């Protein structure tokens, strides 16, 4: 089973509030992170539809991270609760087919916890390095 060590691709959906501000804080502190992730900013983690996560995997992503605010602290009054619930359910489906629910990281935190944000991304990157290849799933050339 070949391993995607050098070719980790993580797609991060970060909410404009805690997710992106956390990332911004980590950048300001010059914390070093591997350049394996790309960020799609969204207004709220509630916007992230499971189909987008699936599409990311179908397009070759090794892992997907959805970053939002603490469950009690959503700017949009608990809009992140349903997001959390449906993405947790998506993990069950990913587990069934072997893609693995652990390829989907759900991180709900606070804007100012930038060290924790950095640690989380780093840990996720490391975990993705040892994931089995998804080559059999994808059409040739990806």
């Amino acid at each position, binding site marked *: *089973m070949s391993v995607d060590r050098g070719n980790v691709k993580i797609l991060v959906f970060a909410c404009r509030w805690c997710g992106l501000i*956390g990332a911004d804080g980590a950048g300001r502190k010059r914390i070093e992170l591997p350049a394996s992730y790309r960020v799609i900013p969204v207004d709220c983690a509630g916007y992230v539809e*499971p*189909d987008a996560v*699936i*599409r990311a*995997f*179908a397009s070759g992503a090794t892992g997907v991270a959805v970053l939002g605010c*603490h*469950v009690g602290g959503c700017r949009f009054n*608990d809009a992140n*609760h*349903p997001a*959390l*619930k*449906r993405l947790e*359910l*998506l993990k*069950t*489906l*990913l*587990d*069934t*087919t*072997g*893609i*693995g629910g652990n390829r989907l990281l*759900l*991180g*709900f*935190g*606070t804007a100012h*916890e930038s*060290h*924790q*944000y950095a*640690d*989380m991304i780093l840990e996720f990157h490391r975990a993705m390095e040892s994931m*089995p290849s*998804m080559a*059999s*799933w*994808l*059409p040739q050339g990806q």
Partner: protein
Amino acid sequence: MLEQVKQKAREILEQKQAEGVLGLKKGLWDVIHPHVFSTPSEIDALVLEPKWLLAKMARALLREQPQNWRLAVVVRGCDERALVELVKRNQIDRERLLTVGYACEANQAKTCLCSRPYPQKLDAGSAVEGVDPFADERVKAYLEGDAGERIERWAAQLKRCIKCYGCRNSCPICVCVPCKLEDDVWVERGVIPAEMVSFHHIRAFHLSDTCVACGACQEACPVGIPLMTLQLSMRAALKKDYNYEAGLDANRKSPVLFDFVKEPRPGQDVPDWVNSMGEKK
């Protein structure tokens, strides 16, 4: 059991509780097909076999008839659940729908690996015990093993998909026009086999909280992909976390649509960057 159903169906027509009864008819040359019986005498030709899901047909019929036209449907357990889900999603007006429910026999339950082979409103036949699909060897083969093994097994199956859309077309819940599975953004068009990850995962997830385990998708698949098995773990998770089963209560919408305050998930490990003691995760 057949006589009981026929009796009930005739009553409905005689008492004008509905304008038509949708069921299976043994017609010309003994060909069995769905039919809307509109007079009590027609009911003589009603049959109950083979398993044939009528929910989607009921929806289509009700849509093209005027508002005061009511329909009674002869249903098995899975059909009734499908109707409940359609009512929940505002596809069928419950005021216009009646059901005549009959139980499935034990072999049918075993063939379908059905855990609930009887409708909630049972008018004929006696309910047999359901079968636990997770105990079946064929199902276990697809759900066990480590991640790598499962990927290989599922990929081998899904690679055979010819994108006939039979699964989507036969599923009683799938009514969307346009459908995401036909949209280039989500699933690449003109590619056979279908993009495995996007087509099948999108379809399976859209049904995550409304799949009623009727088996229509699996029966429709010309290459025999075990599509029902795809849904089983999600159904089990919903039952365990929220005590929710699709198709039982027309007044209870999927718990995934509400927030924790309204539909809490007991023992939920909420992912946090930092736990309350300030320790790093």
